[in-house]
Every structure is written in C-alpha cells, then in structure tokens.
C-alpha cells in the first residue's frame, strides 16, 4: 500500500495501490491525513490500483469523509475495479461516498 498525491488548486488527487486491510489501515489513515490540508475543497481517491479493501480500510474512509465534511470539503472515489466496487455496493458505503468511473468525472463532480 502506498499513496501518491498531486494537488490541483484546492483538489487533492491521491492514488492508492495494493491491499488496504487491518495490517496497513493505520498507515493508510496517516498517509491520507498527511496529504489533506484544512483549506482543501476536495479529495479524489483514485482506486484503480487497489486490489482489496477490508472493513478496516472502509473505516479509514469513513473517518476521512467525516474529517473532510468538518472542513466543508468533498470526498470522491474513482476508477474502482469491479470487486472493489462490489465491496462498496454490499457495505452500502456508496450511499455516503460518491463513486465515479474516472478521475475526470470525479473532478467535474467535486468542482460542480
């Protein structure tokens, strides 16, 4: 698991990869906190290279969503593989985190 972040204006685009599970969820959380600044307006998480996410990983996303909400910022996910998309569908997390097919779509949605 590693995070690669770029910033475009107030939007942070972060790419995660590999497995996000109980063994590295803490690291994932620290990394995410490290890339977000209070003045940011949106975080787009590109999950194209994420192969697996456990409930520990979902918990980090939930806490990140709450932090961003507190700052008045948006969170969006994009480019999920079908098994990962399924995890969000089954857990119902797609009810609270918008999921988009591509970075471009996500960027359009958070700027709109």
């Amino acid at each position, binding site marked *: 698991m590693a995070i690669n972040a770029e910033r475009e204006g107030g939007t942070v685009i972060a790419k995660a990869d590999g497995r996000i599970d*109980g063994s590295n969820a803490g690291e994932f959380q620290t990394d995410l906190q490290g890339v977000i600044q209070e003045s940011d307006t949106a975080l787009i998480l590109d999950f194209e290279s994420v192969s697996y996410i456990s409930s520990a990983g979902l*918990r980090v996303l939930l806490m990140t969503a709450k932090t961003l909400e507190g700052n008045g910022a948006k969170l969006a996910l994009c480019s999920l593989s079908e098994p990962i998309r399924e995890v969000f569908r089954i*857990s*119902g997390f797609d*009810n609270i985190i918008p999921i988009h097919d591509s970075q471009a779509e996500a960027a359009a949605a958070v700027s709109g």
Partner: protein
Amino acid sequence: MAYKILVVDDEPDLEPLVLQRMRRQIRRGNYEFVFAHDGVEALEKLAANSDIDMVVSDINMPRMDGLTLLEQIPDVNSDIRAIIVSAYGDMENIRTAMNRGAFDFVTKPVDFEDLQITIDRTLEHIEQWREAVSSRDQLVALQNELDVANQMQQSILPTVFPSGPAYASFGAMTPAKDVGGDFYDVVRLQDDCAGFAIADVSGKGVPAALFMMSSRTLLKGSAIGAGDAGAVLTEVNNLICDDETNGMFVTMLYAIYNPRTGELTYASGGHDPPLVVHPDGTSDLLPLTGGIALGVLAGFEYGEHTVTIAPGDTVCLYTDGVTEATNLDGKLLGIEGVQDYFATAPPADAESASQEIMKVVFEFTGEAPQFDDVTCLTLRREA
C-alpha cells in the same frame, strides 16, 4: 531517585574511601551506599533493604565469601546485578564469579574512576532490564484482556437454535486469534416466527469486542420490539449512531422467518447477501436491500426484501471471514467456493450445512493463518 548500592568488603578502610571518592555522586542524589563486611551480613542487609539495586562485592571474606554470596543473591531478588572485586590477575576466581552470574568485575587496587564507569554501566543495564520486564508485563496484561474479550464473544453466542415441525436452524463460529467482532443471534418472535441476525464489527481487539456486545444488545431489544426486519435495522442504526463509535461500524443482516408460509423477510446493513442452496445443489445469492453498514449514517431507512423459501432449501448467512478466507497462494475462497462445494454435496440439514461451510473454509485455507472470525448461520425448510 538514588540507586542503592550494597558494598561488601571485610577491609574496614573501604567504607570511608568509597564515601569520600563517590561523594559527588552521593551529593547529587545519584548513588546511596549500604555497607556489609561479609556475605552473611550482606544477605541480612539485602533482606532489610528490599530497594537495593546492585551489589559490589569482594571475594575473600570471613563467614561467607563473595562467590557463595553471588549464588545466594538471585534467591533474594533476581533483578539485582553484582560486580565482583578481585585480585589483579586472579582469572580463576573471576571466571567462577562470571559463571555464577556476576555482571562485571573490577580489580584491586580499586581504580575508583573505573569502578564508577562499571557501576554506571551496570545501572544502565538494570534500567533496560526493568523496562523490558515492564513491557512484557503490559503485553501479558493485554493478552489477558484479549482472552477475556474472546471468551465474552464466545459466551454470548446462542447454543440453542429455533426449530419447528418444518424447519431447523444452526450457527457456528471459529474466532480468529486476535479478537474479531463477529456474532450471530436468534430471537423467538410472535406467531412462531424466528429472527436470525449475523453481524461483523469493523476492527479487532477489545474496542471491537465491546462494540459488538453493545450492537448485539441493541439488536436483541429492537428485534423483540420493532417488528419488521428493515425497521429493526433502522432502529439499531439510530441507537448506535447516538453513541460515539470512533469510526467503528457493524455490518448486519437480520432476517425473519415465518415457518407457516416459508417466507423470509430480510434487511441488510452493508452485509453480504444470503445464499440459498437448493436440494439439487444449485444455489442463488438473494438480492441486496441497499442498506449501509450500521453506525455510519444516522436516520438511514433500511429497506427489506421477502422471498419464499421452498421446501428443501437451505438459507446460509455468513460473514466475510468465509468469503475472504485466504489460502497460502493468496487466493480468496469467495462465496463461489461454498457454492461449488454444495453443487456436488447439497446439505442434508441446517446443522451439517453450517459445519460443511466451516469445513470448506478451513480445508481451503490449510496452513494459512486465520485473520478473521469465520461465522455462519443456516436455516433449512424441511422438504
């Protein structure tokens, strides 16, 4: 706080010499000295001063020599470290002393600068030793807590399962080594109906175990009071959201079975869909009901879905410990693994269905470590 050092020597001149040469360390509160003149008196001083940290002892002394004293010290307190003072070049006694557990030695005539370095080095070792012991004690305490949480998790599971003239049910769980947060529960309802719940709390350890306990209590209360499956999850979710959950959540599937009609009404809060296995070995996953994990979104209205269970069908509820069981090659079992098994060996009854799911999981994972609780709850309408 000053370290307390016991100096043992039959030479009467040594005591004033030590006090004089170490006066700075004494004045600064680093060292405090206690003196004895032979091994017997040393043991008496050790018994009277349980806070002595280390011993500096001569070898040749009346009544009890230093080498014998060395053997006795661990019986008084195994954390005490000793430095031996020997005649220059007396390798035989030095070797014996080291073999009997002396930490270090200095030679006569005593070079006080060297003695101080040796004392400081010994005290540093004692400090590290104490830290290591304290970390180990904390680890043991934590392990004990986890054991308690583990027993708690096991003890709340029901051991008697609802059944009737035309149906039976059964549940099984194999907990992971680190306490996970799975549970299942059964509730007897009005009109011979029965409620079945299976759940998986995010996270591990004591916080997850406590969260699981409270989720289970809330579920039980709501299941008896609230009625419909969707309404039960809506109520439990709101109650959980009222508390500070620290980002923890629980996926839960709650189903109500009516044995008179064979109807099963279920609601899923972010949980894997039920699997229905038919008598011919074919199987279907029931549709999701669009619910989110509990504890995430206050006020969420959980939908429900009703299916009719045909005679001979077996409904399997399970947690992701089943679907995400991983073998040594890193492959996931998936619900397909369970479906493939039942395709050739359809379950004969509710109890064997649960046991066979466990068997499929552990035959698949083999020697691979178990990361998550493996839990299932099965219900069969008799043919």
